[in-house]
Each structure stands twice: as structure tokens, then as C-alpha cells.
């Protein structure tokens, strides 16, 4: 009342003239007016309910060549009638009645009708008005008073997730030190942010700001706490941002919607963040600026609600014209739709040799042998047909089972540290069986979640030996099976998602009835249902918490009584929006190098998919085929997208995220070890297992092979996909150049070179065989010639052949899957 009253006073005295605000006259851009054929305004009309219901509109102009540009900051706004404009061009009511917002820009104009329904001026709301100010100003940021320990003795809840806590901190701490009802301007909560007294956090807003007036008024009104519902959802304009030129800008409108059906324009109160400031930046009031070609998501955060807008920057695309790329299945349709929109030209299909090596490493963990390569390359069938046949062959091969058993053993953390060596072998066999029989994914997960019994008789029960505590079981379950990180909301509400601290404990409580007792031998254990075996307490209330789902969906059988059966049903339901989707996304990343949502186990609103239609279609297809994992794999690898070359063109070179070309992926530790053995023809020497045993067949990471650890074998102590590393290090390079693993393998008496020498092969044959074996392709004529010359230069043929092989193993063509 006071503030608007004061504004009204100035208005009445004529100081503000027509209440028209033009852009700053000294801005150089103001002169460079763009010619537009028409103005477009969103929303087309405004309704204002209440004295503090301030709303803005977005103004864009259509140019003669059909481009849409944002004119919101540059247009001139004038209001006549029952409303006026505030300092940020927001329309605010004066009295009940009609008003009209007139917008002009470079000779064009538009009008927005306004209805002021109500000018009631209720007391300032702590939850809806004060907490947002603190969040927007950064008071409750993690680095400031929102940190675990607060700052300088003053602690707020992180990003304002707990308004009651914040209210106590502001009004109750130190007997009300932070406000001064007797003289509101002297309140510490006003003097600190305005630097009226020293404040390490610096200057945040001045005495004339909206923020200041809101807080001042709330104090003058007696520092009341109003138990109103917080925001339910956020909505924004414009939906999706496409910026043609670097430097181009776009403003935002954000609405907060409340459970009672009301909404507020919170455009200047929300917090905006960009996911990639190298592509697009966003300022405090939501103006997005294109920095360079690419995509960024704009995260919009307001009082525990989140949403994201996607911004695409096209940049210079001179000479671009879409050239049709084959669509092998629906995957390619969705991928190409996006590429067309972003003016990206996909790569060509990879060669048969590239395909063979790529698909074999991806499906079985090992590269083709020379015989396999030769057979595939000389197969005269049409390329697509023989590729499909190869996929079928591999997907049903024993090494497919080995390789995917390893991947699932990683995710489920099969580790003798937790379940003893015998347990590791039996759990491995259970997983192998599931892969071998192509057990539907829902059943696989359901069997794990509901597992009971002796861990020898039902190895799935090892699931509850690996994680032994309800909270830990829940954290691992959510990360692996719904791809979300619930651990972030253990101590406070999730800072980037809707998940709350209470939900963390409620979901954990489903595992409070997991009983564990020793089995007949020391290496086994019995898992059984035992109500309240491990009661889950809520940290705030200190009381036991009942199991509840963080979100619900149809198809849950209410008659189920066992909490884990109930949970399993909820989890694997086709209605569960995360379960199938997270798996489809995870599997996609195994073949394309990154998830459609990436990281794959950090699905949240603030981490949107790079191609939502594709992920939805992939998920639907997976569900339509009843969780058939092999079908999912087949769908992905049969696409043109998967089979694209790593060769880029002028119009996809800078794309790393939209799958317009293949990206080289360093071989994983086990893949690399097995590939070296396959390439050299050496049987390998893994301690404790028979000769010829592949690294991918090992039961867990405790098998001592330092080479694997050096190349990032996961220790299986966390369910994070990030445990397996694919980075490149100096020690790796040195080992590859000079280490015993390759040295011994190349020179092994039963290896390829030794065999070729003993067969008295000529140099031509040796060069060809070495290329086929190491790089899985025939040498080019030039390579063949150089190789042969090289072999003659060394004292012995064997030395020359070993050198050549060593050099090829050290090439990216070998070390990477490409």
C-alpha cells in the first residue's frame, strides 16, 4: 500500500507524465531499429487481481523475411485507464476497471486490453513474497546463508525449501535480532542487503527496490507467517527459443500457478540459469542472449518448482540445404527432425568394416577376429541385410551374455567385498541366466526387489546383501532403475527437482522390513520379510515414517501387503514415467556414447532430454515389446543414426549432442584388454582363471589385474554409471607404449606374429594379417606398401612385424570404438 501509494502520489503530481517508459535514450541500440511488418504480443490480454498483481507482456516483431525477433526491451509501452506501468514495464492496477496497454515500435503498434478485477492489497506473504526475494537475491544460496553451516551465524534453508525454518531464523534467532518492528528501516534484514551496515555478501538491492519495499512492509505489518500453499507449477513464454544470430536476445514471462487456481507473473522473481553459458547466457530477469551455435537449456526455478526452456542458437548456416539421409527406423526420423530444425546435416553411413568392429565391441565387448572381418567384408549380400544378420548373430552369441552380465554386475555392484567370492559367482550366474533367456526387464528388476531366501538358493537376494540399509537400498534403486539421484534430498529438499526430504525417507521406508540372518555357511545369508527390521526415522520429527511413493500412477494392486511387492509393482509398472524411460536412455548411451538425457542416472526436470520425442518413442517401443531388452538393443543398432560415420561435414562438425555423427569412444578397460588379446592372438594371462578367460568374463573387480584398474574398471562400490571412467591419462599412454601387457601379448609364442613366422608367411601376408587383426580391416595400398618396406628395414621379420603391430595398437583406430 505504502509503496504503490507513494507511486500514485508521484503520478498524481504529474512527475511521471503519461507513465510512458521509453527505452534508455542513451542506449546505442535504440537507434538501430529493425523493420518489422507486424507486432505480436503474448499474452493477448491481461487480467489483474489485487494491487500487487503485476504482469508483463512479450512483444515480438515479424520481419519481412519471416523471422521473429524479441522487441520487449525496445518497444515503447503506454497504459491508459485503470492501470499503470511500474519501473520494469509491468502493468500494475490503479483501480477496478478497464485499461489498455499500447505498444509501439518503429511505426507499428499493438494494443492489449486489460481488466483490473480487484485492487485488494493484502498483507505481504512470507512464503509467496519474502522467501522468493531471498532466493532471488541469493541470500539462501549454498555458498551463502543456505549452506550447511549458514554464514556468519545466520542460516537459512537451502534455496528456501523450508519457509518455516527461514521464518524462525529471521524472527526467532537471537530474540528477533534480524528485524526491527519498531523501526522497520533499521532491520538487519534490510540494512545488510542494502549495505547500510557492513555485509560480507555485498550489496544486493537498494532502498528504492521492490525487494526492499516488500520486506519493509512485511516487517511493518508485524512479521507474520502465513501458512499458504507454495507454488504448484511454473509455466513460461515463449515455449522454446530459436535464435538465428549470435547476440540475439529473447525475454521471458514466467507464471507461477497455485493450487487455488490463481496465478502470478513471477518473471522478475524467478531464478534463471543456463545449462551452457558458452551457447547462451541468461541474465537475472530472464533475458537470454545467444553466444554461439548450439543448445542450452534455461533452468527456471521458483520456490521449489522447476521448469526448463530450451534455447537453440542457429548461428551462421550459409550454404546449408538439407540433403536427405536414409531413415532405417523411427529413431532416425526423430533424430533427423531435430537436425533439420537446427540446420545440421547428418554424416554418411559408416563402412562395413567400421560397422563390424563397432557392433562387435558394443554387443560383445570384443573386436572381430581376422576371419570374421574377412568373412563379413567378402560377404556379397547387400550391406543392410548382412548388417542385420550380424546383429542377430551377435545378440544371440555367448559373448553377448558375458558382456551384458558384466555391465549389469557393475550396476548392481556385484562385489565380493559385500557378498563374498562365492556370492559373486552365484549372483553372476543369476544375472547370466537372465541375460541368456532375455528375461523381460520388469521381471528382472521385480525379482531383485522382492528377493527373499537363502542367497545360494535365490542369488537375486544378494541385492539386499550389497546394500544393507534402507536408505542406501533406496538410493541405489532410484539411481539404477529410475535414473534419479534421491541422495540429493536426504538432508534437504532436492535443489534441482521436486523431490522432498520427506519423500526420501518415505521411499526408504519400503525397505524397513528387509530381515537378514546368517545362512548355514559363512558365505551365505538369508533375506526375509520382517516388519520393522530397520525402522526409518524422519530426521526432523525423529519419528518413524511410513512408506509412501514419491509419485503415484495407475495399476497398483492395493491388496498387496508386502511393502517390497508393492514397491516392485509400482516401480516396474508401465505407467511409471521413469522406469522404462531411464533404461532406454541408459542403453542408448551404451551405443551412442551419451544419453539422450545425460548423465543417464541424473534424470530431472533441469536436465532435459536433447531429443524428447526420440526418448519417448524409444520408451514406448520398449514398452510395446514388453520390456524386451534385446529388441531395444536391436532397434538402436539397426538405426542409421547408430551406423553413422565418425567423418563429419561442414554442417555437423560442431555438433556433439544431437547424434548427427558417430563419436569415437575409448574402449572400456575390459574391452581394451580383450581387444589386445584378440588383436595379438595371445591367450592372455589373468591370474586365478584359466588361460583364454576374457576380462569381460571376470566376476568382479577383485581379480588382480592392474591394467584394468588403470583403464577405469569400476570398483563396483557405487551404482553410478560414472564409476567406469573412460578418460585418457599419461600413465595409460606410457603403459600402452611401453607396458608389459601389450609387450607380452605381441611377443607371446602362441600369438599371431609367432604363428605367421612359423608359417613362413611373406611380408605382404604379415602386413595384411596384422592390419586385419588389429584394426579389423584390410590395409590400404599405401599402408600395405609402407608396412612391407618397414618390415625389410628391421634385423628380423619378427621384430618388424611386432613393431608394426605395436604401433597399430597405439593408434586411435584401435584404442577407440569408432
Amino acid at each position, binding site marked *: 500500500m505504502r509503496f504503490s501509494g507513494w507511486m500514485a502520489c508521484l503520478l498524481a503530481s504529474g512527475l511521471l507524465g503519461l507513465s510512458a517508459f521509453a527505452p534508455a535514450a542513451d542506449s546505442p541500440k535504440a537507434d538501430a531499429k529493425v523493420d518489422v511488418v507486424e507486432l505480436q504480443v503474448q499474452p493477448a490480454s491481461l487480467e489483474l487481481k489485487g494491487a500487487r498483481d503485476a504482469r508483463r507482456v512479450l512483444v515480438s516483431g515479424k520481419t519481412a523475411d519471416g523471422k521473429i525477433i524479441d522487441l520487449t526491451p525496445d518497444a515503447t509501452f503506454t497504459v491508459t485507464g485503470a492501470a499503470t506501468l511500474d519501473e520494469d514495464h509491468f502493468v500494475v492496477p490503479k483501480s477496478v476497471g478497464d485499461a489498455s496497454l499500447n505498444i509501439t515500435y518503429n511505426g507499428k503498434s499493438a494494443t492489449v486490453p486489460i481488466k483490473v478485477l480487484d485492487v485488494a492489497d493484502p498483507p505481504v506473504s512470507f512464503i509467496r513474497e519474502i522467501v522468493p526475494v531471498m532466493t532471488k537475491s541469493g541470500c539462501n544460496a549454498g555458498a551463502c546463508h543456505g549452506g550447511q553451516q549458514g554464514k556468519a551465524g545466520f542460516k537459512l534453508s537451502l534455496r528456501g525449501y523450508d519457509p518455516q525454518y527461514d*521464518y524462525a531464523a529471521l524472527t526467532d534467532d537471537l*530474540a*528477533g535480532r534480524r528485524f526491527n518492528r*519498531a523501526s522497520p528501516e533499521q532491520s538487519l534484514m534490510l540494512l*545488510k542487503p542494502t549495505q547500510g551496515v557492513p555485509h560480507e555478501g*555485498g550489496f544486493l538491492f537498494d532502498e528504492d527496490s521492490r525487494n526492499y519495499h516488500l520486506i519493509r512492509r512485511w516487517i511493518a505489518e*508485524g512479521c507474520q507467517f502465513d501458512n499458504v500453499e507454495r507454488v504448484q507449477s511454473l509455466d513460461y513464454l515463449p515455449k522454446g527459443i530459436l535464435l538465428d544470430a549470435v547476440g540475439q536476445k529473447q525475454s521471458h514471462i514466467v507464471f507461477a500457478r497455485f493450487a487455488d487456481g490463481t496465478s502470478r507473473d513471477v518473471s522478475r522473481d524467478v531464478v534463471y540459469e543456463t545449462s551452457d553459458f558458452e551457447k547462451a547466457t541468461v541474465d537475472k530477469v530472464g533475458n537470454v542472449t545467444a553466444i554461439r551455435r548450439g543448445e542450452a537449456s534455461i533452468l527456471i526455478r521458483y520456490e521449489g518448482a522447476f521448469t526448463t526452456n530450451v534455447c537453440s542458437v542457429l548461428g551462421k548456416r550459409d550454404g546449408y540445404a538439407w540433403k536427405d539421409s536414409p531413415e532405417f527406423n523411427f529413431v532416425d526420423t526423430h533424430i533427423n527432425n531435430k537436425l533439420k530444425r537446427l540446420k545440421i546435416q547428418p554424416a554418411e553411413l559408416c563402412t562395413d568394416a567400421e560397422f563390424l568392429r563397432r557392433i562387435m565391441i558394443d554387443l560383445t565387448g570384443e573386436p572381430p577376429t581376422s576371419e570374421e572381418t574377412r568373412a563379413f567384408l567378402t560377404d556379397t549380400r547387400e550391406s543392410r541385410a548382412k548388417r542385420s544378420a550380424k546383429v542377430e548373430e551377435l545378440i544371440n552369441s555367448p559373448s553377448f551374455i558375458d558382456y551384458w552380465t558384466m555391465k549389469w554386475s557393475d550396476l548392481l555392484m556385484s562385489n565380493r567385498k559385500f557378498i563374498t567370492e562365492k556370492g559373486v559367482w552365484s549372483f553372476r550366474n543369476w544375472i547370466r541366466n537372465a541375460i541368456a533367456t532375455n528375461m523381460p526387464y520388469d521381471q528382472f528388476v521385480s525379482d531383485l526387489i522382492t528377493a527373499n531366501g537363502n542367497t545360494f538358493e535365490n542369488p537375486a537376494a544378494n541385492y539386499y546383501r550389497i546394500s544393507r540399509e534402507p536408505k542406501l537400498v533406496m538410493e541405489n534403486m532410484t539411481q539404477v532403475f529410475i535414473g534419479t539421484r534421491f541422495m540429493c534430498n536426504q538432508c534437504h529438499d532436492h535443489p534441482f527437482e521436486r523431490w522432498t526430504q520427506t519423500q526420501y525417507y518415505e521411499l526408504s521406508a519400503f525397505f524397513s522390513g528387509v530381515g537378514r540372518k546368517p545362512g548355514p555357511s559363512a558365505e551365505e545369508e538369508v533375506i526375509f520379510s520382517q516388519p520393522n527390521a530397520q525402522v526409518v526415522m524422519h530426521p526432523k520429527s525423529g519419528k518413524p515414517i511410513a512408506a509412501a511413493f514419491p509419485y503415484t500412477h495407475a495399476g497398483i494392486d492395493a491388496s498387496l501387503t508386502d511393502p517390497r511387492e508393492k514397491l516392485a509393482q509400482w516401480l516396474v509398472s508401465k505407467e511409471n514415467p521413469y522406469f522404462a524411460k531411464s533404461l532406454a536412455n541408459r542403453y542408448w548411451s551404451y551405443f551412442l556414447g551419451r544419453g539422450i538425457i545425460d548423465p543417464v542416472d541424473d534424470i530431472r526436470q533441469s536436465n532435459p532430454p536433447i531429443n524428447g520425442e526420440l526418448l519417448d518413442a524409444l520408451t514406448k517401443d520398449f514398452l510395446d515389446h514388453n520390456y524386451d531388452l534385446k529388441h531395444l538393443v536391436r532397434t538402436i543398432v539397426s538405426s542409421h543414426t547408430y551406423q553413422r560415420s565418425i567423418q563429419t561435414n561442414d554442417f555437423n562438425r560442431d555438433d556433439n549432442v544431437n547424434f548427427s555423427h558417430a563419436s569415437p569412444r575409448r574402449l572400456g578397460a575390459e574391452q581394451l584388454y580383450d581387444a589386445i588379446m584378440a588383436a595379438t592372438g595371445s591367450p592372455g594371462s589373468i591370474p586365478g582363471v584359466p588361460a583364454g578367460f576374457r576380462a569381460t568374463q571376470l566376476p568382479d573387480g577383485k581379480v588382480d589385474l592392474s591394467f584394468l584398474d588403470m583403464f577405469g574398471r569400476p570398483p563396483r562400490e557405487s551404482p553410478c554409471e560414472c564409476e567406469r571412467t573412460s578418460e585418457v591419462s599419461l600413465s595409460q599412454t606410457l603403459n600402452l607404449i611401453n607396458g608389459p601387457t601389450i609387450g607380452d601379448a605381441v611377443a607371446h609364442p602362441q600369438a599371431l606374429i609367432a604363428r605367421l613366422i612359423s608359417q613362413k608367411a611373406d611380408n605382404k601376408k604379415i602386413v595384411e594379417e596384422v592390419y586385419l587383426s588389429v584394426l579389423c580391416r584390410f590395409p590400404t595400398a599405401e599402408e600395405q606398401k609402407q608396412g612391407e618396406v618397414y618390415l625389410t628395414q628391421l634385423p628380423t621379420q619378427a621384430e618388424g612385424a611386432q613393431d608394426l603391430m605395436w604401433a597399430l595398437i597405439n593408434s586411435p583406430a584401435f584404442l577407440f570404438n569408432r
Partner: protein
Amino acid sequence: MSFLQFDGWISRFSVVLLALVTFLTVSQSGVAQDAKPAEVAPVSFYRQVRPVIQRHCSGCHQPSKAGGKLIVTSFEALAKGGESGPGIVPHKPAESSLVEVISGEKPRMPLKADPLKKVQVELITRWIAEGAKDDTPMALQDNISAEHPPVYTNPPVITALAYSPDSKLLAVSGFREILVHNADGSGLVKRLVGRSQRIESLAFSLDGKILAAVGGTPSLFGEVQFWNTADWTERSASFASDVMYGGSFSDDSKTFACGGADNSIRLIKVEDMTLLRKLDPHSDWVLGTGFSVDGKNLVTVSRDMAMKLSIVENGQFVDNITSITPGALKGGLMAVRRHPLRDEFLTGGADGEPKLYKMIRTQVRMIGDDFNRIRGYAPLPGRIFTLDFNTDGSKFVVGSSAAMTGAVRVYNTEDAKLLFELPGHSRGVFSVDFRPDGAQIATGGFDGTIRLFDANTGLLVKQFVPVVISPAVASQK
């Protein structure tokens, strides 16, 4: 005198004034920009330079965190400068280190922040060239006085209460003042207007001659005020850069102790207000103090969760009275009172449980022990902010706050029996006091209302707001 101590009354007007000034400047700038100003007004330190420095420099260069040994929160300190020499040399910007550090392509200051704008640097340079005058109006520094006492539009939170030893007066904390009421609530006797915005603690000396007020203005200074009850004249001393807490007199009324936001304890000679000693056994704000019966020892409680024992004569730290086992303590301790007759100390804090401790350790400390604890009492909801014994120590009253609710209870000291729950406290209680004659108990807190209870029945006798509310002023704002 710090130039930051403008007060509530003036700043209300100055905001409006400032707004008008800003507005006029803006509205005229369009016209004036191109034309050369005929005469340039001298730069005002108070209106132009001070806000810039306050905004960009005072975060790091303030009394509690004097980076580079420089303090910029007062004109005097700014002029004096820090490690880099004199901050300001009047008429000689080139020799003033202030100008040096903020100028250039990549100025050294402000650290890890955007450089000052060119116009700001020019402003400061010009101000020094013009002689670097401090034009802070005297009126702005202090316009509240005994002649112009504070005007209230809302009741202030009550943070401190104290009955006089003869049970005739009740001193109540106000904003910039102490309100001395008749103990029965029948009327205001005297308004003791001082400099501190907040009075955190009030205490009468046992001989009744002095009313001590401890407080200050948050983030600016701490203060101890001694008021002679005979003629209500004031003596005061300022300490530190933030508020002081928990004042107490020794039984012989010769020594005074208080804690502070600077984690220190101060011992003050009552006779001449000299600082006898500064003690630093605590690692967080010290919120309560109490002398032993013989006056030789001092017990203090702090937000660091500990109750500590020190020797008055030499300031030596003796012992942690509470357990020192990690995890044994929860939350800070916020109040302490000595038993009137014995060296036993009642304390309370964040866990809501009143606890009685003996001062002197009689057993060797062992890991995990809490030997000095005599007994605990049924916890109150929320945090304990205040407690007080009756004159013989047989009973005590304790007040707590859980932000949205408050509670006041009276317990028997010996058998821990809950005697009364004093009703009517819908919000947090920050101060309670037992009347020395044992007849009544006063409470106050968030809602700004004093409640007087019959100490023998627990029934409410009277309630009143200790200040006069002037709604007319509120509407004028």
C-alpha cells in the same frame, strides 16, 4: 562517532528525500546532459562517497573483518587508512591509497568483484581533491534523545526485563531506550533513552544503585549502559562492532560482566566503567554470564554449546562445566543464572531442556562424562531464551520460543516438579524475571506485550504493551 548511526526517524524521511532527489536528477538529466554545467557542486561525502564505499568496500573492511588492517565504516578510520598507508590525503588524490587501489585498467580493489564505475572513481578522486571533507550532518548521527524519545508505530520485541531489588520497578527493553515501569504495571516511571537500538539484557545491581543495560546496534557496535537509579543519569561504554549480551553484577556490585557477538567476555569495573579484562574462552557468541557467590569466578554460556568457568582476577580459563564429549552437546546455550545462595548454575538453550550444574568439578574428567550436571528438567518446546530464580532459589521460571509458539514454565529447583505453565504465550518468549519479593513473574517476547503472573498461582494478573503506539505516524509514512 560513526557516520553510519543514522536512526529510524530520519531514515524514514531520508528514503523519501532520496527518492525525490533521485527522481529530480533523473528527470532533469535528459535536459542537462548535453549542456555544460555552469557550476559543479562539491562532492558530498555523506550522500555520494559514503554509499559507494559502504556498498563496495565495507563488506571486507569493517571492524570485525579489517582486511588489510583497513576499516571504512567511519570517516576517521577511512582517512587513517590501513597497511597501504593513509587512505585519504586531503587535496592530494595521487597520494591517497584509496584512489590508487580503485583506479587503473585492472584495479586491485574491490577484490574479486567488478571494478568501480568510472564515474564513481572520479567522484571519490574529486572529493579528495576538494579537500575530503566529512559533511555528515550532526543531526543525522543522533536525533533521538531524552527530549526526543522514540515514537512507536508497532510494539518492539521485548528482549530484556528486570525487577529492581526492592520490587518496585520493572525495567523493560525498548527501541533505543529502556522503559522503567512501576512493577505492578500501573504506569511508566521513566524513559531511559540511549544509543543502543537493542537492549539484550537488563540487570539491577544487588544494592539497587545501578541499572545495567547491555546491547548495541547490530553490525555496528556493542554497548554497556549504567544508569544511576537515584537520578537516572547514564554512563556508557562502547565495545566491539556488534551487540553485547548477558550482563550480570557480582554480588558485591563492584564488578560487571557481559558477553558479546565478538565471542568475548568483558569484565568491567562498576565504579568507573574501565575494562578490567577481556576473556576469550569461547568460540562463538557469548550469550550469558554469572558470578560465583564469592565473586571470584565467572560462568559463561555461548552459542558454542559450552558452559565455561573462568577466574575473575586473572581471566584464566579453568574448566568446561558442561561435558566436552563431541556430540554430547546439542545446539547453543542461550541463558544462564546462578542459584541465589549456592554456586549452582541453571542454563538452557537450543534443546529446550533446563539443566542445573554445579560450578566446581569434584571428580577427574573422563571421556563421556557430565559429572557437574545436577539435574535436568522436563524440556520446553523450542529453544530456551531466558530463565530466572526466585530469591531463595527454591523455584525458577523459564521461557522458550519455537518461532510460532512460546512457553513459560515454573519448576521446583530441588524435585524438578513442574509447578505452572504460565498461559497466554502464543509467540516466542525472550525474557522472564522473578520479582525479588516472590509475588510475581514478568514475561515478554515477540508479541511486545508484558504479562504479569501471580507466582503462587500461575494466573495472569495483568498484561500491557510497555510503549505508547502512535498509529497516526504509521499512516503518515
